[in-house]
């Protein structure tokens, strides 16, 4: 597989959300806005990238039987780093993501990539893989966040999408957003259709 493919496979062909359907909890929980979704995606990408690199570097020194615990320690370390750094420098985002920052540690994608890829590939390949998967994850979360924000708040990244003029556009067609999309049920419904649309285009 070429290095480019190594990087890009996670974005579409093996997209962790739309194709592999992994890491659903943060996907649903943190995408009430595009910004939150992207923040979560980037945090996960960092963990994914770093743990992939470290694990591929140390994999051969680790006995099989303690493989999983060791990987978990590595991942948890990076998660805690993200946690602390965000708390210090991105308080607002940190608060809106809440418990899902520490929960990156149990995101199936992270451990999954460590198990399936990083422990048998070179550091550079693992880096590409982690980066690609992370980008795919971030892309998916941002997309879902955007869709939800657009429908549920008529805005994207906090910017209103309905122009003020002509006035009837807002008065007649887009008077109120479909609030449910920024709430729990809307997360499920929006993701359901995004995956369905993705399935359709994959074929």
């Amino acid at each position: 597989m070429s290095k480019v493919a190594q990087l890009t496979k996670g974005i579409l062909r093996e997209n962790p959300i739309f194709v592999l359907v992994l890491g659903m909890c943060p996907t649903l929980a943190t995408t009430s806005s595009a910004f939150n979704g992207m923040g979560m995606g980037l945090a996960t990408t960092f963990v994914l990238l770093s743990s992939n690199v470290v694990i591929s570097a140390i994999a051969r020194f680790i006995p099989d039987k303690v493989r999983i615990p060791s990987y978990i320690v590595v991942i948890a370390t990076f998660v805690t780093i993200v946690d602390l750094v965000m708390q210090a420098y991105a308080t607002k985002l940190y608060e809106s993501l809440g418990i899902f920052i520490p929960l990156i540690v149990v995101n199936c994608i992270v451990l999954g990539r460590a198990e399936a890829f990083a422990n048998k590939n070179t550091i550079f390949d693992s880096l590409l893989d982690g980066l690609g998967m992370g980008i795919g994850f971030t892309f998916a979360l941002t997309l879902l966040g955007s869709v939800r924000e657009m429908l549920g708040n008529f805005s994207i990244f906090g910017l209103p999408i309905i122009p003020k003029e002509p006035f009837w556009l807002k008065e007649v067609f887009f008077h109120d957003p479909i609030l449910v999309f920024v709430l729990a049920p809307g997360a499920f419904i929006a993701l359901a259709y995004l995956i369905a649309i993705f399935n359709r285009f994959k074929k």
Partner: protein
Amino acid sequence: MNSIIITAVLVLSLLGVALAIVLYLVAQKFKVIEDPRIDLVEAVLPGANCGGCGYPGCRGFAEAFVKTDDIGSLFCPVGGNDTMAKAAEVLGQTVEAKDPMIAVVRCSGSPELRKRVVEYDGASSCKLATALYSGDTGCQYGCLGLGDCVAVCKFDAIHIDPVTLLPVVDEEKCTACGACVKACPKFIIELRKKGPKGKRIFVSCINKDKGGPARKACQVACIGCGKCVKVCPHDAITLENNLAYIDYNKCKLCRKCVEECPTGAILEINFPPRKQKVEGQAMNVESN
């Protein structure tokens, strides 16, 4: 060094050591013994779980394959020889190549050639119709055309032709798993040798009635006249119960019987066209 770092290091290290001890004990006490070769064999199998090999799924086949003394007795019809060679490699053995097989439909009675005498109005299932009557034509052996074979095919390799109302096997997709053979309540489908370049000859009829009634029910029925038996130079054709049958192991594809057959019940597939045509219907099947 800061005390917080020291406590952190101490706590986590202790935890790490404790876990290591626990896991070590676990690893010592509870070992699962399973032949690792089963996984390896399973990995080379197609994974269709079709059951064509006679075992419940590919895993079942893999287990049997690892256990058996004579791996030549097992065959995966879907994967074919390549797969079997790979699987044998896993065990460090070799297998003889088997001739590839294909499903053939032994009925050519399209509505044009085999008049419908009654109209069926019920659920679309050959099995069900079989319980009800012998078929909507005068031939009680012929294809019912309700597609039980289509429904069971896991490889999308068999379809009912909208004109002839008969099943047509897609040579590319057919894996000779035999599911359709089992599904057909009329026993019309048979697995036969695919033949060199797909060339094969067979009697496309299973009507065991005497000549008169058979001919009356269907224009392309085998009427049991025996001409093909006489003309065959390789002794490949037998006649039993008014029905000719070509043994594909003996047939040398000389095509003499095809010319001789008065009703056109014998089909030749994938041969280059020859100057004088036998009948139109042979083309029907070829043109799939």
